[in-house]
């Protein structure tokens, strides 16, 4: 018998009596002000939420961010935020992303509960871009906020299936004496632009 069949046989033989799968809807109450809660949550995970009115204001905001960070090599997958000077589609190998100072990437929706932003893999030419870049800017329509992870996972279930991730603030660690340090392996900062 193959290992696969042997394991499945053992698990079936050992299975406890059936139990109903519980309902997960209605567990959390919605927030009164989703945008304000999202901004608070982004700050709590060490990110920065920035509200901008429209496309041109977004481009200005990203330019100001790049200037403040001293970012020279900028990759953008958000047309309204400006083109940047690293063409993501032209990269043949993800290792070429090393040295990108700022990546501007589209978020699909944000989660008010915890400040996380869902990023769809299909919008990244290389998966590595969000983690190899030194700094990260995520761009989100202000109307695309869900209350909590229950709504968030329902949203993900309704999207086309594929690789994707929640990003909540910059990379961090507290592995040395519990001291919070920002910028462990991935982005050293994470700005979330809410447009509109």
């Amino acid at each position, binding site marked *: 018998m193959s290992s696969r069949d042997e394991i499945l046989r053992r698990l079936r033989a*050992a299975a406890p009596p059936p139990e109903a799968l519980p309902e997960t809807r209605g567990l959390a109450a919605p927030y009164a002000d989703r945008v304000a809660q999202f901004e608070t949550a982004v700050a709590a*995970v060490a990110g920065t939420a920035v509200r901008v009115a429209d496309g041109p204001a977004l481009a200005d905001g990203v330019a100001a961010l790049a200037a403040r960070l001293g970012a020279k090599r900028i990759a953008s997958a958000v047309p309204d935020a400006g083109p940047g000077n690293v063409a993501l589609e032209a990269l043949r190998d993800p290792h070429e992303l090393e040295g990108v100072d700022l990546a501007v990437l589209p978020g699909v929706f944000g989660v008010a509960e915890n400040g996380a932003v869902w990023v769809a893999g299909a919008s990244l030419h290389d998966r590595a871009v969000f983690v190899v870049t030194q700094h990260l800017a995520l761009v989100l329509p202000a109307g695309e906020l869900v209350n909590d992870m229950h709504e968030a996972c329902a949203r993900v279930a309704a999207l086309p299936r594929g690789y994707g991730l929640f990003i909540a603030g910059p990379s961090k660690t507290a592995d040395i004496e519990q001291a919070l340090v920002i910028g462990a392996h991935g982005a050293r900062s994470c700005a979330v632009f809410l447009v509109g």
Partner: protein
Amino acid sequence: MSDSLPVLRSDGRGHADRAAAFLRDEPHAHWHDQAVWFVRAKRDRAASAVPEWERLREVASRIKAHTQARLADYLEEFERKATAAGATVHWARDADEHNAIVHRILSERGVTRLVKSKSMLTEECHLNPYLEARGIEVTDTDLGERIVQLAKEPPSHIVMPAIHKKKEEIGDLFHEKLGTPEGLSDPTRLTEAARAHLRERFMAAQAGLTGVNFAVAETGGFVVCTNEGNADMGTSLPPIHVACMGVEKIIPRLEDLAVFLRLLARSATGQPCTSYTTHFLGPMRGGELHIVVVDNGRSALLAREQYRRALHCIRCAACMNTCPVYRRSGGYSYTYTIPGPIGIVLATARGVDGHASLPFASSLCGSCDDVCPVKIPLHEEILTGRRDLAERGLQPMSKRLGMRLAALVLRVKLLYLAAGATARFLGRNLPRGVLYARWNPWGRQRELPPMPRETFRQLYRKERRPRV
């Protein structure tokens, strides 16, 4: 083939002896206690900020109970969908087969440099030494794991592997291994040095290995949670991704995932969620994805009714952070890969050989049950472990004789009365040196209570006497 695990540090010493060694450095032990308690306090703040916390725990526990009854069905569904998305699924009965599969995947592709993110399963299987012995350089990339790897130690905690180390000690280690300036102990600068060092490893790696936090049957995808982004780095630069998961990591639906994600980071570190919560479905552009599904004793655990709820565990470590024994004895006092209350249960449920001291590394206070996000009745399962030991005659002779004596005394009224009188008399009259001599291990760290002149029965009779 080994269904039971190899003993991690089989020097024959039990938890109490190792704990005594840990406690010899009293200031360090106190610091450890405080450091771990700090995480427990963060968890409390995060949990109390969620009004529906108790309902979430209840629902999470019921999802796990439902899934356990249908593990095989959900694994088949997961395999089907993961395969359709381009992954290759492998199955391993035990640690040996797991290690052989991972090695075969890597060696067939000429991989000699592997970066790993945290996986307690690969610790359980002792994968690193297996691969290193076969010429593969393994770099643990979680900062805490890299610290203990450089120090040639196993993790002492499952979420914070280097929680037992002070920053000065890490500074010395980094000075020796990474060339940081002597005496540097600032966590920010040490982390920066590790970032540069590990980025080189990420750039040079030919394959990345991760654990799995949750595998979703409905999608065929799996989720890996990190704060550092090391799992993402290791799976997006090198083209080969190997993900290792125990059979119990499966959950039915994406909506179930929401429940667990809300509980996991809050229970582990007090965060509302980890920085990166990545849903892997299919390989990266031009790459390969291999998923290794491992039993290694889990089906045997599932068959044991009194222990099976330990398979609910999502490895948040809240039970060790709250445990008065873990905090005051450190992860290395346990004889199993996973320390703390859940480690005691997992070790003894698989067979107590080499772990006979573990069920006693608990005060049975039940604090672990109260913080467990998936409601594992930990202290009851630890108690079951003690019962199993007794039934197999694996208790130390002193305890066995003591218990037999107690059983006799408690059965025979005259003996009971005589023993009480004798103990009261001796307790009052024996010199301290005799009372606290070697025969009394209980008194080594404790003071006996003052012996009363009257028994409870005498007092009771006096009180019941009609008053005039």
